[in-house]
């Protein structure tokens, strides 16, 4: 059922403005929906769940009129700062243009998987939150808004409900920017969503706990968003060396803190914790290819993530600068970011205009390097070892937002037999987000994961089913290749656990390097295994 929620309704009292139920959602073929879990009574009492019945932020309503006034005033002060160059040189131009020149054609709506899969609920339109921002900005900061009010659209009341619902709403968008790619004018609702998150974080101190407190702040405190200290990192590397020995029958010494190396490889630290086979595969490949590389044990130097990318310019800058400083300390020639989409985009591209002066050290993503390893002939690959259906997920950050489209495909074509690799619908720059983007994969508070898995990842589930539609029989093992740590997190939580693809269809997920090592002639035992997964 579609719930009609007008923009003006955001300010109105309602227990839940858009009460989402699984029956609202667009069906996934072969999947039997389970009703959403009941919200705990204590959550209802304590927290604001009045947007859609879910909460990513666990916000407590203001207790007094004064507290509400302070909240409203702070929000307005933050909103004003988005439009001043001193406070927001980083994104002022795109923000101002997206505020002034949207023609309200709604073209962006159908591009958004969250909107479509939710049964086209109004509140999830990509331009819904941007339009709220515009209306509030008009009402309080423009002459025409003050004079003409609702005639020019400045008709949204600003109260704590509007602010809290808007805050929650910013965590219903994966910032995949598929909407921006379809906008005839160039309005970027993904950016506007991030600007709103930024306002909440930088002015009101409101952010997802998984992204801010348990993410960036822990990153800055311990050296890694996972909480892995440099000493723990060294222990993990030893464990990975043992694992490699067990898998391939010989020990590889992973280079750590090698001064003056050609490459400093920076992984998403989640790989060390959740998917150590990925850094292991990198180590095997780089060693076999004879590449001069190293990892860093310096605090921040072994962690590629930058959660500020999703919500806070200052947090972003702090992490990016610290990462590059770690590389400079080692005197490496270049940084290569491992299989992590947002880390690649953050450090290689966005940080390009933060790391000025002597911090402008060369940085690149790993996919071109992997392609070079394949095409150089330094390693012999036997494609027949990857004789199973494989589909490829295009991480938004590396593909639509950086244009890295062909290297991963060239690698797959070289290491798989003909007919095994199949594209999923909308492959390439118009791919759909895995559902874990913008920090969703690390946000696990309250009942948010249920919303994430059921709504944000739903389109990806459909794409995977379509890609494997000719071989869904569980007797055929299948591989969902997602060369991004966040995307793998979403695959684990949504595709494998929520939708049950592993049990039902015998689909496993993993990165690109695992498939490369699996195809290496010199390695006898399969590196990719379905048996381990069951």
């Amino acid at each position: 059922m579609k719930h009609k929620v007008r923009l003006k309704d955001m300010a109105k009292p309602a227990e839940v403005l858009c009460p989402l139920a699984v029956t609202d959602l667009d069906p996934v073929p072969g999947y039997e929906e389970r009703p959403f879990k009941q919200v705990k009574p204590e959550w209802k009492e304590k927290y604001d769940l009045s947007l859609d019945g879910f909460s990513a932020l666990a916000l407590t309503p203001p207790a007094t009129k004064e507290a509400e006034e302070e909240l409203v005033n702070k929000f307005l002060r933050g909103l004003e700062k988005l439009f001043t160059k001193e406070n927001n040189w980083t994104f002022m131009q795109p923000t101002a243009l997206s505020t002034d020149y949207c023609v309200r054609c709604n073209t962006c709506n159908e591009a958004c998987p969250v909107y479509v899969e939710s049964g086209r609920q109004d509140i999830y339109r990509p331009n819904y939150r941007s339009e709220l921002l515009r209306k509030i900005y008009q009402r309080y900061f423009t002459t025409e808004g003050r004079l003409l009010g609702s005639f020019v659209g400045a008709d949204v009341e600003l109260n704590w409900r509007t602010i809290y619902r808007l805050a929650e709403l910013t965590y219903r968008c994966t910032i995949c920017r598929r909407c921006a790619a379809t906008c005839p004018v160039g309005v970027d609702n993904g950016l506007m969503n991030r600007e709103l998150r930024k306002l909440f974080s930088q002015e009101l101190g409101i952010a997802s706990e998984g992204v801010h407190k348990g993410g960036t702040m822990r990153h800055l405190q311990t050296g890694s968003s996972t909480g892995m200290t440099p000493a723990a990192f060294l222990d993990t590397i030893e464990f990975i060396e043992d694992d490699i020995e067990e898998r391939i029958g010989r020990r590889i010494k992973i280079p750590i803190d090698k001064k003056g190396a050609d490459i400093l490889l920076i992984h998403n630290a989640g790989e060390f914790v959740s998917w150590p086979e990925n850094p292991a595969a990198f180590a095997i490949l780089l060693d076999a290819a004879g590449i001069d590389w190293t990892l860093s044990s310096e605090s921040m130097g072994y962690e590629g993530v930058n959660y500020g990318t999703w919500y806070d310019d200052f947090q972003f800058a702090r992490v990016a600068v610290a990462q590059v400083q770690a590389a400079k300390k080692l005197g490496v020639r270049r940084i290569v970011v491992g299989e992590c989409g947002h880390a690649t985009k953050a450090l290689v591209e966005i940080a390009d205009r933060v790391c000025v002066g002597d911090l402008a050290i060369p940085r690149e993503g790993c996919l071109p390097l992997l392609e070079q390893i394949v095409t150089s002939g330094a390693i012999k690959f036997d494609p027949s070892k990857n004789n199973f259906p494989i589909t490829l997920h295009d991480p938004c950050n590396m593909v639509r937002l950086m244009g890295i489209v062909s290297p991963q495909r060239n690698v797959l074509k070289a290491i798989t037999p003909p007919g095994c690799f199949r594209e999923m619908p909308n492959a390439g720059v118009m791919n759909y987000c895995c559902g874990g983007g913008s920090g969703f994969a690390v946000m696990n508070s309250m009942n948010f994961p249920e919303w994430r898995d059921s709504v944000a990842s739903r389109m990806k589930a459909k794409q995977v089913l379509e890609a494997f539609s000719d071989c869904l029989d569980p007797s055929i093992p299948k591989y969902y290749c997602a060369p991004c740590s966040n995307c793998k997190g979403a695959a684990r939580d949504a595709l494998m656990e929520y939708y049950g693809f592993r049990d039902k269809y015998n689909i496993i997920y993993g990165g690109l390097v695992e498939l490369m090592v699996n195809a290496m002639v010199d390695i006898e035992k399969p590196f990719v295994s379905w048996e381990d997964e069951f």
Partner: protein
Amino acid sequence: MGETFSWLIAGPFMYLAVIIFVAVTLKKVVTIASMPRHLRWDLYPIAHEGPAGSVFQKVEFWKQPRAVHLAYELAEMAEEIFLLKRTFLYNRKMWNFSYPMHAGFYLIIGWIGLVKFGALLELIVGLKVSGASTVFWAQALNAATILAGAAGLVLGLFGCLGLLWMRYTDEDLKDFSSPVTFLNLYLLIALFGVGLVAWLVEDPSFVLARGYVASLYVFKPAVLPPIMTFEALLLGIFLIYLPFSRMLHFAAKYFFYHNIMWDDEPLVAGGSLDKTIGGYLHFKAEWSAPHLKSGGSWLEQATTNPAKPKEEGK
């Protein structure tokens, strides 16, 4: 009285409208262009990179010469401007009306150009642009002017009426359509509609329009018949209003594409971008969340670690 009114509208008011349109549009464009250089926020494919695609696909891409093929960028922009490519691909229902409306604008702009050219010919070389002319290209110019004007008015009116119908009947669009959205459409409908009536009733060969433009060139504004006077009034209002409205997206669009989505200029140590950004780092930021340093510059903020344990006694 009627003639005086017509002269005031067709003369001083029209000059004023054109001056305001140009001045405000320029001011807005300069304001946008002088906003600070933002962080990179690319969206691919970037047209000027050509068929090779993103430079990030290459190993050690910073060693490659930066690909900026103007022809590809112009081709993509032309598709977007003249065919409304993205609307065609992603919102066909709206394209069915938006395209005729935009085509109407382009044809009317073309018509204005032809009328101005014809007026200049008449003024400078004394050649009469007319269907009865014995000079072939004067005949051709006359035919092209009539065709562009008539087609522009019909298409523009059709497109605007269609868009108005969509805004009234599409429930999803309704909530995103404030009264000013409807005002914009009504103004355009009036502009195209009255223009169409004026053409049919008062000036089927655009002889009066050409003569009127010639009179503006020599600062002796002509008096127009009633419907054309009304059309001049509407045109003047439209020109004054346009740069203050979101219809200025025709100019803003260039910045959206060229300066935001397709701004892939890399930062080179010691280069001008490096210096520009370096200057921004001295801006004082006034955000006040607990993890930020109040009153600190961007550089101080970027090098502050709020999670670092505080030293004892401090």
